[in-house]
């Protein structure tokens, strides 16, 4: 067994190591403190403005659209149920392309701005067509 003083020496090294590790691991956080860019302004299409209401209210959609899409996906693909009834009793076809992106057909100004801002890169559009009307 290593002697006692050597063991203690290691302990200091360990503490120093943990400190360095935590500082490094936290790099993105302290590096960006006080430097966050202003939230982007998103633009609605005329169709979206005319519709007034989305599937759910604006705040819910801003925060939770990914959760909603996730349960929609499972409902459609796995359970074969394609209609969503929102709390107001309005029915929607659960289709990212044919419902969501039909209204929000301006991907760059609507989806991408926030996704870029929050630095997420969902790959929905690899398969789901962003503008089903093709204009």
């Amino acid at each position, binding site marked *: 067994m290593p002697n006692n003083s050597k063991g203690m020496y290691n302990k200091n090294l360990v503490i120093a190591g943990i400190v360095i590790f935590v500082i490094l691991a*936290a790099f993105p956080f302290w590096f960006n403190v006080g430097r966050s860019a202003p939230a982007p302004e998103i633009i609605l299409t005329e169709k979206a403005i005319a519709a007034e209401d989305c599937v759910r209210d604006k705040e819910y959609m801003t*925060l939770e659209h990914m959760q909603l899409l996730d349960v929609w996906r499972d409902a459609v*693909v796995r359970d*074969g149920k394609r209609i969503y*009834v929102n709390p107001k009793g309005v029915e929607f076809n659960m289709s990212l392309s044919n419902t969501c992106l039909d209204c929000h057909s301006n991907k760059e100004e609507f989806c991408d701005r926030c996704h870029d801002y929050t630095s997420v890169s969902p790959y929905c559009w690899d398969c789901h067509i962003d503008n089903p009307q093709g204009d």
Partner: protein
Amino acid sequence: MKSSRRNFLKIAGIAALGVGAKPVFDTFAAVGGHGPTEPAPIFKSSEEALTANHWAMVVDTRKIRSERDVAPLFRACHQVHNVPDMPLKRHEIKWIWAESFHHAFPDLHSELISDKIARTPFPVLCNHCENPPCVRVCPTKATFKRESDGIVVMDYHRCIGCRFCLAACPYGARSFNFFNPDDYIKEVNLKFAKRTKGVVEKCNFCEERLAEGIIPACVEVSNGILTFGDLRDSRSSVRKLIAENFTIRRKVHLGTSPAVYYIV
């Protein structure tokens, strides 16, 4: 002396740890949870949707005279589902296509068969087996048999591309996206999704059309070659055809129980 230096290092270390970690905690504290608990969402099917206990297909090969009679089936399917036309044969994506009797039914093949059968192109597709081996082997349940109507469905979101199902399928009905198919779709159907590279795909018995009350695309343009209906309903069109004609299925000895029947 030694001990006080050790204590100093410990305290300094813990302090530095706190300084380093604080912005992290702040950030996570700001994000918070996902709001108040949601009531369970309500989902339902359309009233127009076509339903069955187990969808099945009958192929009346007596009505097929040449490749020209079946080519529109394949075109209709591949167009509506954004099936790409890959440049290399080994990367081919096929949902429904033609095979000779010899290849479609290698276990029934004889050297001496009728000229008519030898010449007939047999449309082949996913058999939506009653006992599908592809479903059995999938390690993520990305492919599964839908309990409501027996369709063997692919969840492209979940597929990890291990290709175990290609090994398990005795009919070669599954295709893998070796490249991004996007660049090879001739005419995109904007209403239907594409696939991404690295996932497996196959015929879905047009479940997206059935949900809207429309029969499968291939059946629609088949001029009576294909009949689609409920295998469990003794009065259905497919059951009538099966009752009145001698039908064969592909590789029944494997116990997969295909739901595609052929009248020869």
